[in-house]
Structure formats: C-alpha cells, structure tokens
C-alpha cells in the first residue's frame, strides 16, 4: 500500500509486519516515536507481542537477549546515549547468538548535549559482532528493517542486526512509503539453541581458554557468511517486492573520475551534488555505503575518492576514511562534516569535491 510516513513510523510499521514476540524498549529522542508506535500497536491489539517497558536501555537489551534465547523474535530501538548504555549487552547479544533486531536512530553524543544526527554512536559499537546497515530514505528504513529479521535469524548468521537511520534528518522527515504484505518472506523464527526447559542446558557459563576462541571464530565465520545471506535476502526481497538494495547504492559511478563516499542521508544529498558537478564537467559519482558490518568489498581502483565522515575517532581520524583506506588501498580526501546535525548541503558536498586534496583531512566549518 502506498502511503506517507516518517522514518520512525516506517521502522515501526516494518517491525510490526515482522510480528516480533517481544519488544523491550526505553524511550530516547529522536527514536521515541518508534517504540511509542509499537506500544500503540500492542495496546490496540493489532500486534500480538509482549511489550516490556524497562527502566533502562541496558535492561532493554538484556530483556531482548533473554526473550530471544527463549525462542522469541525480538525488536528494540534506541539512539545515542541509549545505545552506549547498552554497550555491554550488545557484545552479549552477539556472543550469545541471539538475533535481536534493533533500530538505532543515529544521534550525536554529549557533552555538549545534542539530539541531531551523527554516526559516532553506531561506529563505537562496531566491534560488538552486530551487523550494521545504514539507510537514507523512509522506504529504505522500512525495507531494511524487514530484511534485518530474515538476515539475523538465518542459521548461517544468528547474529543481531542494527538498522541505522539519521536522527531527525530521516527519523522525522515525511516521505512516501510503499508497505508490503510480507507473507512468508521472513520464515518462522527457529533458534537452534533456544532454551528448552525439558532439556536444561547451561548458558553463558565459564568458557575456558582452550575453547573460548572457537566461539569467537564461529562469530566471524557467521559474519563472513552473512555477506551471502544478505545478498540472497536482498535478491529475494527484490524478486517479491520490486526494490533491489545492495552493499552500496552507486549513482553515476560507471565513468566517474571522482567518487563521493558517504553514509545515510548525506549519501543521498551527495547525488544532487554529483548532478551539479556533472553540469560543470566534473565526472563525479556517488557511492553510498549501506552495510558497515560486514564491511563491503569496494572497487575504487583508479578513482579519486572523497569520503565524508559524520563521525570521528579522536587521535586517529574519520572512521570511514580509514575503513576505505585500509580495505581498498585508495588514499582518500577525508572530509569531517555533519557532526551533531551540522547543516551540509549539496552545494557544500560539491565544494568538497572541487577542493579535494588527496591524503588531507578537512573539517567542514573549522579549517576553511
């Protein structure tokens, strides 16, 4: 059905369509609308789930892990400090192989107190073993959330998935949305190691040095296998519902001399910058990264690359710039822009491309 919705409402609609058995959540701006909407679905009876209003995000994730271990499909949503408060439990969810699906509405970290978009919250969870996807439209927020359940729960994966959307820029924008009748796209949830009270087993027990590493390797093996599962899931989604998503969204990249790499809404705005630059005779393209973990295999050889980081790793650099450098060998022009919701227009992005100096780092609004 074609309708209109905000990014938050789209995530809630997709989560509802996936029929989770348990939702445990704690509100935080700018995510609150997601769990508010899900609570409404449960209260009005249109979603048959247990909604657990917990006292913190740490507890929200703990409840999701417990419910998932008991064999229930689980969903939660958070943002920024809420995500950081979950940090310990994020490692636990991945290590316990509980395929929780979570929306993270990307928001800057305090102090200074700031509720606007930034990706440092998600990137600071990059080593937890969660898959992470970043979306840029209301439609994509919906589609990615639906696919997240199928990917996470695939027995070749059994790792949690985080769907990231930019705070306010996407969470609160109204755009068109085509909802789908999901049918059997998401198979019934079957956790092979689900708690079975008829056959008691130990969970999270002491795991000594001679076997612990095997569990870690098994997580990485699943993370590697997830590439194939993601590709299969995206292909099946396209077959059923007509929209094809991939590891990146490439725009006018085929013959591009210079490629702008960004995530989220900035990656969409970059497409407008590309059109402007093309009019000036600059052969520009845009490559919007969708998957951050597993990190996509990119082909950027022979191109100049401008990476926009809406994040920063202090004493190191932009996380995306370093990720691109280390995985492709391409030395980018690193732009730090959009922190804490800083306005970045397509004109600004076009200017980043014009002024590019390979190997340099540029802080928008600071070093110009």
């Amino acid at each position, binding site marked *: 059905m074609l309708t*209109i919705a905000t990014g938050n409402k789209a995530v809630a609609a997709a989560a509802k369509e996936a029929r989770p058995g348990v939702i445990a959540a704690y509100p935080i701006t*700018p995510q609150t609308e997601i769990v508010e909407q899900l609570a409404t679905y449960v209260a009005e009876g249109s979603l048959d789930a247990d909604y657990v209003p917990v006292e913190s995000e740490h507890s929200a994730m703990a409840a999701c892990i417990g419910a998932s271990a008991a064999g229930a499909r689980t969903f939660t949503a958070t943002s920024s400090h809420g995500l950081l408060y979950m940090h310990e439990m994020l490692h636990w969810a991945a290590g316990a192989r509980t395929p929780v699906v979570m929306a993270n509405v990307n928001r800057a970290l305090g102090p200074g107190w700031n509720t606007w978009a930034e990706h440092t919250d998600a990137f600071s969870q990059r080593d937890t073993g969660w898959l992470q996807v970043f979306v840029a439209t209301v439609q994509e927020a919906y589609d990615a959330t639906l696919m997240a359940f199928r990917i996470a729960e695939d027995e070749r994966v059994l790792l949690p998935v985080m769907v990231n959307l*930019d705070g*306010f*820029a996407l969470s*609160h924008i*109204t*755009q*068109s949305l085509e909802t789908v009748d999901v049918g059997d796209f998401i198979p019934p949830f079957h956790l092979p190691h689900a708690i079975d009270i008829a056959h008691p087993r130990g969970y999270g027990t002491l795991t000594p040095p001679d076997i612990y590493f095997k569990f870690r390797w098994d997580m990485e093996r699943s993370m590697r296998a997830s590439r194939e599962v993601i590709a299969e899931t995206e292909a099946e989604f396209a077959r059923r519902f007509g929209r094809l998503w991939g590891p990146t969204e490439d725009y006018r990249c085929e013959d591009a001399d210079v490629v702008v790499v960004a995530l989220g809404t900035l990656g969409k705005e970059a497409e407008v910058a590309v059109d402007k630059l093309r009019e000036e005779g600059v052969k520009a393209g845009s490559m919007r990264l969708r998957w951050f973990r597993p990190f996509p295999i990119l082909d950027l050889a022979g191109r100049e690359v401008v990476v926009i980081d809406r994040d920063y790793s202090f004493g190191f650099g932009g996380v995306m710039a370093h990720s691109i450098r280390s995985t492709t060998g391409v030395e980018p022009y690193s732009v730090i822009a959009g922190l804490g919701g800083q306005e970045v227009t397509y004109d600004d992005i076009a200017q980043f491309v014009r002024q590019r100096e390979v190997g340099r780092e540029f802080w928008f609004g600071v070093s110009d």
Partner: protein
Amino acid sequence: MFEIRIHSRGGQGGVTAAKLIAQAAFHDGRCATAFPFYGAERRGAPVVSFVRISDQPIKVYSQIRNPDMVIVLDASVMDSTDVLAGLKEGGAVLINTAQPPAIEGHPVHAVDLTGIALAQNLVVAGSPILNTPVLGALARLGLVSKESALAAIAETFSDPRNATVANTAYEETKL
C-alpha cells in the same frame, strides 16, 4: 521543485501543517517531503518547518534556504524573525492575519486562519487549529488540489470541522 518554509510557534501545528501539505501533494500524484527543524524550541517559541514538492524523487535533506513561498502561521513571529530571508524574487507570502502588511516585491496573501478556526470553536489545548484551514488557503493558491487537501485532512483528523475551516479558508483566500 517547489520549496515552502513555514514559520509558526511551538504548539501551533506548523509541523503537522508541513506533513498535511506533503500528504495533499502526494495525493495529487507528486513527490513531496516535509520536515521540521527541531532546535531547542519549546512551546510558544518560533519554529520552522519545510515542505518540498516535485515531480521527481526528492534527494535533498538539507534545510530550505531559498524558498519559493513562505507561510506565516503566527504574524507575531515577524517581530523577531526575518521570515523573508532567502525568499526567491517574487516568491509569495501567505500570512495568517486579518490586517495584511505590505511587503515590497512579494505578493502577500492574507487570510484570518485564527478567526476561521475560532468561528468553529476549533481549539485544542488553548490553541486555535491553523494547520487545516491553511491547507484550504493553499488549495486556493493552486499549490495542491482542494480534493487532495480535504483527503489529507480526513486521513489525519476525525473532527469534521477541520474540513469546514479548510473550505472557509479556501473561500476567503484572495488570489
């Protein structure tokens, strides 16, 4: 692409007005996005919302700097905010007021949305509802069709007075 900036005060429904306009444009078969700028504003403080309408998919997320049209839901905002900032040459200004101010270089459409809402006693939490009559005014100005404006209102609000005030504003808006 047609870009609109809406000036209002927190609690007056400017954000919902933006959504309703996008919804109506969507019913007209066009692409539209609506988004507020959430600052540190609270109830009563000046707030800004944005609407983009286009026949092509809209990829721009940044704020509107050079609107084609400005809507002022609360004329008192004009005392502290330059509502004309960046407005394109000849860009129209729609103001909720019974006394239209003269603005050089811009066509001014004045309509007493507050009076229209009060006449129907359409008041929620002490604030007259402005976002449904403003849709009627915009339909009169040809931005969205009247049918789509009424459809967007009906989908959002159950109180039939919202359609009544939209119709009244449609009649009272001067081209």
